[in-house]
């Protein structure tokens, strides 16, 4: 089933359930590689659903760009099965990002102070860790991001 995401005045539809099912197939093995369990990148205080609606689109747009440019691009899958699953996830998130860019083009994806502040906090958590470790951790936290989108 398609889900409609209402992110302020930006409204998009996505197959969130399919994306979540796809991630659940690799979740245990990806998370098992993340040994730094005392650091969490996507924290409750920066959650999408805890952000005012007008800023949600911008925050999600920036988070997806972070994932696409610095996580999926640098992730080294241990086997072909995971490679295929991760590629499909990346393509799904790319589609969502393109939809958000359309909202941006139609002035319905403003970047207010709250979005900027929360994204910079996420980025600072992200940059706390060594490159290869952070890629594995961020990928393992996709269930958090997808849950944020579910609740947005």
């Amino acid at each position, binding site marked *: 089933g398609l889900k409609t995401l209402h992110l302020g005045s930006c409204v998009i539809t996505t197959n969130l359930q399919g994306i*979540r099912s796809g991630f659940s197939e690799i979740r245990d093995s990806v998370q098992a590689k993340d040994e730094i369990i*005392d650091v*969490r990148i996507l*924290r*409750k205080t920066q959650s999408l659903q805890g952000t005012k609606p007008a800023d949600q689109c911008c925050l999600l747009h920036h988070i997806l760009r972070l994932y696409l440019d610095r996580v999926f691009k640098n992730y080294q899958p241990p086997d072909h099965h995971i490679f295929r699953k991760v590629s499909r996830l990346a393509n799904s998130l790319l589609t969502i990002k393109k939809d958000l860019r359309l909202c941006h083009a139609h002035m319905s994806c403003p970047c207010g102070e709250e979005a900027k502040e929360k994204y910079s906090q996420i980025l600072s958590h992200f940059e706390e860790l060594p490159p290869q470790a952070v890629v594995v951790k961020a990928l393992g936290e996709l*269930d958090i991001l997808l849950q944020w989108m579910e609740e947005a």
Partner: protein
Amino acid sequence: VPCVSGDLPKPTNVAFISINMKNILQWNPPEGLQGMEVSYTVQYFIYGQKKWLNKSECRNISRTYCDLSAETSDYEHQYYAKVKAMWGTNCSKWAETGRFYPFLETQIGPPEVALTTDEKSISIVLTAPKKWKKNPEESSISMQQIYSNLKYNVSIYNTKSNRTWSQCVTNHTLVFSWLEPGTLYCVLVESFVPGPPRLTHPSERQCVSTLEDQTTALEVK
């Protein structure tokens, strides 16, 4: 008394069993030590925080489970747990779970099912399962409040014709019509949340008979 770590094999199959947010850590005794007087100690960890925490009620216990529902009740957080075995002055290394995300992993228990019948139909009223609560005085929270997209898979089985229908519903009342009078039907209901697959917990099978056809009953008189 500190024990010599690593001399014992670790407990095995350490995992959370979660139903309606009642989160029980469960494990098997170490290989080769079944039936021995082994004791266990449990710790848990909130992902992203800084240290492992003790569960005092699960220190030096002989049972192979530990209720961590209270400690893992913020279902937007993710958790780890670990357990080690002790026997005399020896103890095992820790055996750890994977990352446990209650919101995504808890099994949704079956609803309560109430059936009423007449000659050719069965009315079914479902009551959503309740979330685990710390103490009985607390007000109940329905799992529907946590999962707004909670659905039910209702199956009805005609014991005479051996035919089964299933229907997926979101509302709490439904009527199966065009049934055969004077026939025993059995109903089974399963709750589920669309999304990543979860283990499910069907309800007890409930059987009820439709009433006899009153028209033929009158003619017989």
